[in-house]
């Protein structure tokens, strides 16, 4: 009994100590992502998604309360400055209560000519560095995932000598840490296969538990960086753009390391046991994106703090794949046994990249819609509202990156009545439209909004009951605009919700400028 009581007391002290650490470091975060870099830059595909992913990890596992975190996606420099100012105010207030504070700034996007490129706006790196350095916090962490971001390393900061810096006293850590995704003369690269930038992807995988080298259920700043460094260099070694070397510099007073995420306390996700074979485990979400890429060594275990959901698992061997699926219920840590996996050929690789492909490709969709002419002189007696069946074919990235050349065919019919002052004639209305469109889309991990122009050839016909009136037809070219959003369901299928506004010149009973709107939803398949 005495031994048991002693152990219980020791465990209690440990838990209390950990809780005390978490309480003493009040964390604030400003997380920024922007795919657009303005003139002279090519739009990125995953910067916003990377930022969202980091935001999710920090607020779920990183001890950052949602009210203390600000996610700025596709915002301008003023948005970033406002978010930093707000974080500074919050930190000042926390410090007034005697709290130890930390500020984490993450950025994924373009950087060029000494400035972060936020759409058409610029945020000079010197300005950013000055703002962070002067922030009223004890610890400042800057993570920049941008081309040549290594240039941001502050003078006087020491380059990390090694990555095996042990965590000892987080409460004592003070100063500035800067992580960059690439060296000063390197490009940072994105990958369609993983659906993100290499650096942010591996950093996120590390924060989810892949970097927990010590196995204590906590991922420190140094562990996360070491993991991201190794995996980024390995993945980009053979890339066309050349290897990408993340950098790390720090200017911390004290000997402390910082715990960035706690993957043990939440007790939710996937547990890869010690006896599981070593290798790289890919955990793929429903949309086909790699949620985590865990490099597990032989004889060690890993906790991967994934959000609840269904995942496909892949481990690559020399001659085949080992694949399987598992569900992560809320609040449960699911053990990934080797029994969950089965052999599969390389052609069955689930990591096809639930991603946006840069190469030109065809897609095809089918769905249903509804069309109605705006208030016409004779109301529905002229062109009645009609349900439509749509078939679309689209060619992406052919004319230009993120431009979509589309062709669609739609048809529908309905019954209506020509209710006129001297006529009350039931008729059957049919419509066929053949159209070409040119759209610009902004692909993200899940949502892809798009807008564009469209030119439709409308063929309308109506036949009347009885033989009193001959059938009537009308055809015209109708210009319009289209817009909507595609929601990715899997790596190759999307649910598209779309609206259209069109101009319709009706010139039989005199010239009348009419318009019509359409709403449609369809399922699209990428070839």
């Amino acid at each position, binding site marked *: 009994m005495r031994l048991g009581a002693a152990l219980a007391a020791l465990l209690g002290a440990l838990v209390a100590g950990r809780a005390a650490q978490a309480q003493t470091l009040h964390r604030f975060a400003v997380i920024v992502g922007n795919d657009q870099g303005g003139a002279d830059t090519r739009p990125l595909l995953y910067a916003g998604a990377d930022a969202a992913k980091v935001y999710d990890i920090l607020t779920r596992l990183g001890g950052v309360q949602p009210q203390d975190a600000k996610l700025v996606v596709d915002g301008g420099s003023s948005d970033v400055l406002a978010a930093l100012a707000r974080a500074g105010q919050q930190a000042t207030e926390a410090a007034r209560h005697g709290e130890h504070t930390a500020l984490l700034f993450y950025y994924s996007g373009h950087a060029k000519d000494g400035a972060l490129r936020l759409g058409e706006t610029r945020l000079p790196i010197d300005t950013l560095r000055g703002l962070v350095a002067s922030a009223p916090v004890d610890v400042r962490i800057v993570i920049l995932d941008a081309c040549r971001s290594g240039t941001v390393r502050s003078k006087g900061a020491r380059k990390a000598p090694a990555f095996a810096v042990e965590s000892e006293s987080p409460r004592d850590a003070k100063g500035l840490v800067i992580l960059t995704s690439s060296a000063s003369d390197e490009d940072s690269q994105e990958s369609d296969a993983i659906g993100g930038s290499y650096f942010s992807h591996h950093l996120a995988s590390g924060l989810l538990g892949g970097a927990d080298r010590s196995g204590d259920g906590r991922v420190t700043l140094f562990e996360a960086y070491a993991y991201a460094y190794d995996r980024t260099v390995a993945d980009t070694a053979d890339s066309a753009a050349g290897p990408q070397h993340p950098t790390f510099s720090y200017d911390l007073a004290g000997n402390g390391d910082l715990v960035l995420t706690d993957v043990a306390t939440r007790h939710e996700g996937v547990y890869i046991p010690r006896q599981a074979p070593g290798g790289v485990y890919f955990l793929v979400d429903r949309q086909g994106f790699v949620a985590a890429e865990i490099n597990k060594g032989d004889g060690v275990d890993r906790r991967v703090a994934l959000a609840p959901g269904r995942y496909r698992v892949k481990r690559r061997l020399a001659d085949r794949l080992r694949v399987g699926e598992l569900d992560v219920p809320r609040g449960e840590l699911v053990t990934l046994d080797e029994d969950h996996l089965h052999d599969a050929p390389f052609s069955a690789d689930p990591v096809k990249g639930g991603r946006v492909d840069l190469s030109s490709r065809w897609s095809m969709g089918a769905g249903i819609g509804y069309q109605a002419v705006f208030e016409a002189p004779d109301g529905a007696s002229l062109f009645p509202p009609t349900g439509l069946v749509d078939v679309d074919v689209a060619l992406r990235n052919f004319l230009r990156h993120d431009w979509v050349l589309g062709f669609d065919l739609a048809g529908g019919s309905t019954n209506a009545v020509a209710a006129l002052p001297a006529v009350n004639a039931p008729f059957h209305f049919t419509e066929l439209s053949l159209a070409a469109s040119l759209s610009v889309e902004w692909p993200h991990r899940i949502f892809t909004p798009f807008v564009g122009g469209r030119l439709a050839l409308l063929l309308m016909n109506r036949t009347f009951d009885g033989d*009193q009136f001959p059938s009537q037809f009308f055809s015209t070219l109708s210009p319009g605009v289209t817009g909507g959003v595609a929601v990715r369901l899997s790596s190759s299928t999307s649910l598209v919700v779309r609206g259209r506004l069109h101009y319709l010149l009706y010139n039989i009973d005199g010239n009348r400028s009419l318009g019509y709107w359409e709403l449609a939803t369809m399922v699209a398949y990428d070839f």
Partner: protein
Amino acid sequence: MTSRTLASVLLACVLGVGCGNYSNEDLEFMAALPTTTQLAVELPSAVNTATEAELAGKTHDAIAMVNQAAKNVLGLIDTVRTYTPTSRTDDSRTWGPFPDQSNPGWDWELIVTRDPTGTMFMYTLQASSDGGTTWIPFLTGGFDAAGGARQGNGQVTANFAALEAAKFPLDAKTAALADITISYQNFDTPGSPTEVSMTIDSTGAVQGTPASLSVVYEILADQSGEMLFTLTGNLVPGPMTEIVQVTSQWLSTGAGQATLTVASGDGAGLSQTECWDSAFNPTYNAKPWSALEDVGSATDCPALPTLTPLTTP
């Protein structure tokens, strides 16, 4: 549609100019024109015509004649209406000119105009033998859509004499007609009767054939109705011109009563009254000039409602 026309239409579409005949206005102009079926009347008919009451048969014959005349007159309009108007203005539609395939050298044209109120339509179907320089009005008519959608009063006159005078090749039977005038109202309001009157004038009528003939009938919603059939001419042996009238009234079951009266001329004052049942068999017949045909008594006649008396148009 010729290939050139088709090419022009396609070119217009490609250039973004709307094309076609999709028009509500056209419907209004076309709806102002009466149709054969609109004026045709279907009455209950006898299964066994051999036993059919005499005046019931005359009533049927008169209605059949009206239907046929309406078909002959309005058939032309029915045909034209199956085509899209050739030209449009704000207040008119024109069909044609179309060449008359049966009568080479003649062209036809139909013009429908609408007055500014938007409810009164006038139309003329006319023929030309000189390429459109001179037009001979054949059908002239009008429709007042006072009652709303397809409800109102209309009148149409077919002027066969004008065609005959212009040497249009009419057959002998048609050439004997001077003109036919049809008036109608077709308020579809429940309880409101459909009323049609027709006058046919002939040229050069001989003994035993009418010089003019008029029919007016009124059909109620339940298909019961009444008819006044008036013949004018030297119809009875003798020197004078007679006016002979047949008034009929029937129920929706078919049972009815009719009275034939020689209103003037030779035999003036003679009158025959006949009643029949729903099988059209005579139940009562009082025929003073042929007493052998008398049957039953007046009490065997069906009870008929009192309708508004019809007058000769």
